[in-house]
């Protein structure tokens, strides 16, 4: 069964803003689906439509087997949602908030109490659970918000940029938690992110959003492979051995291009990983052994660049992208 299925899903705000512009989604049960796009590309709007918070302008969607327009209450029962902005009542304690959330999903007082205690343990909030949320740090609030999304044991979870703004340690903890949720409990995860490495590490399938449209979709490996070319960077003892190596490598099957620059040789070819061993052997036989060898595969950033014409532009966490990528 498909966990999420959308056809022609569209949301316009007023006559000019096409936040989501007719997207089709098919997310298999048990997958982590990475929804990648830069600011304003329509990620949150998509999540809100799938989570029954925003009414689509057009199109249909089924989530966990239920139509979001025909039966939104049943969809809410089956999905967990952690929105981009945490939504917490600062006056309650973490425990009160989680227990109330559980009860509003129909749990008995006792069930809600046990479930809240368990989740507080899982997200590492047991020691602050009885303090007012007002005093929590940003990362702590985010973890509580995440726990809220899981309180009723949903089979499909939407996480809208769950790691944005977290420090590397917390980010890693969230990643591991998402993996455990997915691998351990089989929960389908719809994850939006601006971080390529996050999508790359976690997602079984990635969709790249640009200006309200999905411009590429598939497993990260396939998307990267579709770019075609890997590169192998070699350095040699002397220019002379580099030249000899370049001549030999030019004849190697699958090599598209060889560039020599002093003691360095760059080889461009399909599927570099499986060619590495043969290349090393060939160079040894030719009496020009490489001193260093680096295999570079296309990254999702290369994919992003190819399908959108610009780099993924994220303010924090990475050096500024070329100016063509900025849109605001």
């Amino acid at each position, binding site marked *: 069964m498909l966990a999420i299925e959308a056809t022609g899903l569209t949301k316009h705000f007023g006559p000019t803003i096409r936040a989501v512009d007719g997207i089709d989604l098919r997310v298999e049960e048990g997958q982590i689906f990475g929804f990648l796009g830069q600011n304003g590309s329509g990620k949150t709007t998509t999540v809100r439509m799938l989570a029954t918070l925003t009414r689509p302008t057009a199109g249909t969607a089924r989530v966990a087997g239920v139509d979001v327009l025909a039966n939104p209450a049943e969809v*809410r029962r089956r999905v967990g949602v952690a929105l981009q902005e945490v*939504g917490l009542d600062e006056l309650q304690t973490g425990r009160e908030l989680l227990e109330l*959330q559980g009860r509003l999903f129909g749990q008995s007082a006792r069930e809600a109490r046990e479930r809240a205690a368990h989740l507080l343990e899982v997200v590492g909030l047991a020691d602050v659970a009885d303090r007012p949320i007002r005093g929590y740090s940003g990362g702590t609030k985010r973890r509580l918000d995440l726990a809220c999304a899981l309180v009723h044991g949903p089979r499909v979870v939407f996480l809208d940029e769950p790691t944005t703004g977290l420090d590397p340690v917390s980010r890693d903890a969230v990643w591991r938690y998402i993996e455990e949720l997915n691998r351990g409990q089989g929960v389908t995860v719809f994850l939006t992110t601006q971080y390529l490495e996050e999508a790359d590490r976690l997602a079984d399938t990635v969709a790249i959003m640009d200006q309200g449209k999905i411009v590429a979709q598939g497993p990260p490996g396939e998307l990267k492979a579709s770019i075609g070319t890997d590169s192998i960077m070699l350095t040699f003892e002397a220019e002379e051995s580099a030249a000899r190596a370049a001549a030999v490598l030019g004849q190697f099957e699958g090599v598209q291009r060889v560039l020599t620059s002093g003691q360095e040789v760059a080889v461009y070819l399909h599927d570099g990983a499986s060619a590495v061993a043969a290349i090393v052997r060939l160079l040894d036989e030719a009496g020009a052994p490489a001193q260093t060898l680096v295999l570079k595969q296309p990254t999702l950033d290369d994919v992003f660049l190819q399908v959108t014409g610009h780099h993924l532009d994220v303010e924090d966490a990475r050096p500024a992208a070329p100016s063509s990528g900025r849109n605001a």
Partner: protein
Amino acid sequence: MNGITATWLLTVRAFRESLKQPANELPNAFIPLFFYVVTVGAIGSVAQNAFGVADYKGFQLPVAVLQGAAGVANGAGLAMTLDIQSGYFEKLALTSTPRLAIVLGRMLADAIKAVILAGAIIVLALLYGSEFKTGIPGMAVLMAATFGFALAYSGIGVAIALKTGSPQAAQAGFIVFFPLLFLAPTFAPIEVFAAWLEAVARLNPVTYILLGMRSLVTEGWDAAALAKGGVAVLAIGAVTLTLTLLALRSRVRQ
């Protein structure tokens, strides 16, 4: 989730909020009591001669109760805007709870607070020397009426809050409706009003709520006055609940 249980859970949450920040509730208790004492002090001794009201303390008692209820009932709208701004409203809207429960929970908490305040005002007024013609049963009826009025009145702020999400708008809405409490026989009987004010007061549902409550304090059981008051509460409630439902729809289906 069952709507009644959910409403109650959210009422308890709203109530706890008040217990956690009691200072927010103080003005709601202070203002009506202050006006009560000051008005009685200023006009009480001439009320008999000026417009034939012997027990002005009793005459003013329901005014204080309504003023208190209106003040308290303003809280729901404001609190709702805070929930909307913090995103907690959406968190609640993502549960399987009927969304009306999120709204009713808040309104119900205010209505209960208004009843508690009404009880306190009655006790203080009695200590101050007011009489209460219909005794304990009448007090119970007055508190029930207060509950209905506060519930209905809180719908104004809640509807504005849901429609706009703005605390300023919720507050402004309250200010627009507050005069209704004074376009009524608040300080003197309607018979002594200027003609235009009497005409306005007779169109104002608050007039009938006030007269019904006042009859319990100063006159005794008056079925007609109580019936009119009850109809007025239901009328206000019908209007504000409709507005609230419309505003709720527009908020959750945007």
